C-alpha cells in the first residue's frame, strides 16, 4: 500500500489521474473502518487532509460553496441559518469525534444510501462540483447517486465543492434509529420548503438502493398548497393533505429488510417523519409570515 500525500489540489488531481484506483481519504471515518477490519486493501491511499481549500466554505448570494472536507461540526455551528437542513442532519452524524473529522465530500464519495447528508442535500437542492486533470463539472445532486454505494464520479475525479442552495424557507431533517445517539439511519427524511418558488423538496435516506426524492409526494403537495392558496393565506395544512403527502413519501421508498430494520418499518417510519417534518416546517413558515406581516 502507498500513502500519497498531495500538498495541493493540483497535486491531488494529478495523483488521482495517475492512480485512478487510489482511494481518497479525508476524515477517514469510512475508509479507515474498512482498513481496520480488513475489508479493503487499496494499493494507494490518497490523503486529502493537507488541501486547505477543501476545508473552506463561502456563502454566496444564492448558494453556499461548501468544501468537501468541511467537518460536520463546522456546518452545525456556522451554517445553521444558510443550510438548516444540512445543519440538522450534521448533528445526527455518528458522534462528536466523527463530526469533527467527517465531511459531506466523504458522505458523497461513499454514496451509502444511509449517508446522513444526502436527504438534506436532495431537499435543499445542490450540485456537486467534481474535478479531474481533464477539467471540472457540476453534477446535480439528483443525478449523483447511481446505485448502492455508487456515484457519478469518473475514476480520475475528486469531489471539491458542494454548492447548496441557501435556504429560502424552513427545512427539517429526521433520522430514525434504534439508539438516541451514534446510530446509523434505519431511514431518514429531509424536507425543505422553498417559498421563493412555492415548491417543496424532499430527500429520503436508507429506504431505497440510493438516496431518493419523493417526487410524487412533492408534486402532490406543491399542487395542494397552490390550489388552496396556502403559501399566501398561511393556513394550516389540512390533515388529509398531510396524510396523503406522508403516504406518497412512504410510497417513494423501495427498502429492504436488514439487520437494522424491516422494509415495512422503513416505509411506515418515513411516512411518520414526513408528516411531522411537514408540520414543523409549515408551522415555522406560518410563524415567519406572521412576523413579516406584523412588521408590515
Amino acid at each position, binding site marked *: 500500500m502507498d*500513502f500519497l*500525500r498531495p500538498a495541493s489540489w493540483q497535486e491531488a488531481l494529478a495523483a488521482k489521474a495517475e492512480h485512478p484506483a487510489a482511494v481518497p481519504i479525508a476524515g477517514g471515518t469510512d475508509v*479507515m*473502518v474498512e482498513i481496520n477490519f480488513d475489508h479493503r486493501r487499496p494499493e494507494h491511499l490518497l*490523503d486529502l487532509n493537507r488541501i486547505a481549500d477543501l476545508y473552506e466554505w463561502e456563502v454566496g448570494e444564492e448558494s453556499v460553496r461548501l468544501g468537501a472536507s468541511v467537518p460536520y461540526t463546522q456546518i452545525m455551528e456556522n451554517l445553521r441559518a444558510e443550510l438548516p437542513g444540512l445543519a440538522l442532519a450534521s448533528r445526527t452524524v455518528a458522534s*462528536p*469525534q466523527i463530526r469533527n473529522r467527517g465531511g459531506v465530500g466523504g458522505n458523497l464519495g461513499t454514496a451509502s444510501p444511509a449517508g446522513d447528508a444526502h436527504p438534506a442535500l436532495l431537499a435543499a437542492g445542490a450540485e456537486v462540483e467534481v474535478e479531474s486533470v481533464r477539467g471540472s463539472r457540476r453534477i446535480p445532486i439528483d443525478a449523483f447517486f447511481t446505485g448502492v454505494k455508487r456515484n457519478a464520479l469518473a475514476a480520475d475525479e475528486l469531489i471539491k465543492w458542494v454548492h447548496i442552495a441557501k435556504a429560502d424557507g424552513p427545512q427539517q431533517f429526521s433520522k430514525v434509529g434504534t439508539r438516541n445517539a*451514534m446510530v446509523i439511519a434505519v431511514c431518514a427524511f429531509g424536507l425543505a420548503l422553498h417559498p421563493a418558488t412555492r415548491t417543496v423538496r424532499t430527500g429520503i435516506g436508507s429506504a431505497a438502493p440510493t438516496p431518493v426524492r419523493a417526487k410524487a409526494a412533492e408534486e402532490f403537495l406543491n399542487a395542494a398548497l397552490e390550489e388552496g392558496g396556502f403559501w399566501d393565506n398561511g393556513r394550516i395544512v389540512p390533515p388529509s393533505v398531510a396524510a396523503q403527502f406522508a403516504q406518497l413519501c412512504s410510497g417513494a421508498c423501495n427498502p429492504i429488510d436488514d439487520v437494522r430494520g424491516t422494509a415495512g418499518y422503513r416505509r411506515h417510519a418515513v411516512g411518520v417523519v414526513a408528516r411531522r417534518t411537514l408540520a414543523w416546517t409549515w408551522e415555522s413558515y406560518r410563524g415567519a409570515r406572521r412576523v413579516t406581516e406584523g412588521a408590515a
Partner: protein
Amino acid sequence: MRVNLTVNGRPQQADDVWEGESLLYVLRERLGLPGSKNACEQGECGSCTVRLDGVPVCSCLVAAGQAEGREVVTVEGLADLAGRRAEGGELAPVQQAFIDAGAVQCGFCTPGLLVAADEMLERNPNPSDEDIREALSGNLCRCTGYEKIMDAVRLAAARQQEAV
C-alpha cells in the same frame, strides 16, 4: 513510511509505519503511549479519543500518515494540558473528578471519556446535563451506567467554577 508528529508537546518520529496503520496503532505500539484504547477500531466507542490539532477525534480512524506534522494530545498529556491552562496539579481536574466520583470501574473507556470531557469543559465550562450527554454521546461505557460519569463531569465543572 516515516511519520513525524508532536505528541503531548514532544516531537516524535515513527519509522517503518505500514501505510494502513492508524494513528492509534502508532501511539500504542510505536510510541509507547498505550493510554488511548483500542476497543472497537471503527469509531463507535470513543475509547481512542485524542485531540488532533486541538479537536477530539477517534485516533483509530486517522491514518498514521494523516498525522504527519500535526499536534496530538492523549490522555497521557491531559495533566500537562491542564497545567498550561493554569489548572495545575498532578492530575487534570477532570481526571481527579473521575476518581473522586467513582466514574472509573474497569477504566477502559476512561481515557477517551477524559479527553472528550476535558475538551467539552474547555469550550463549555458550565454545561447542562443534556450538554454533557450530547458531548459524551460518542464514548461508550459498559460498566458504570454513566451516572457516576455525569457526577464526575459536574464535579469537575463545579471545581473549575470555584477556581475561577
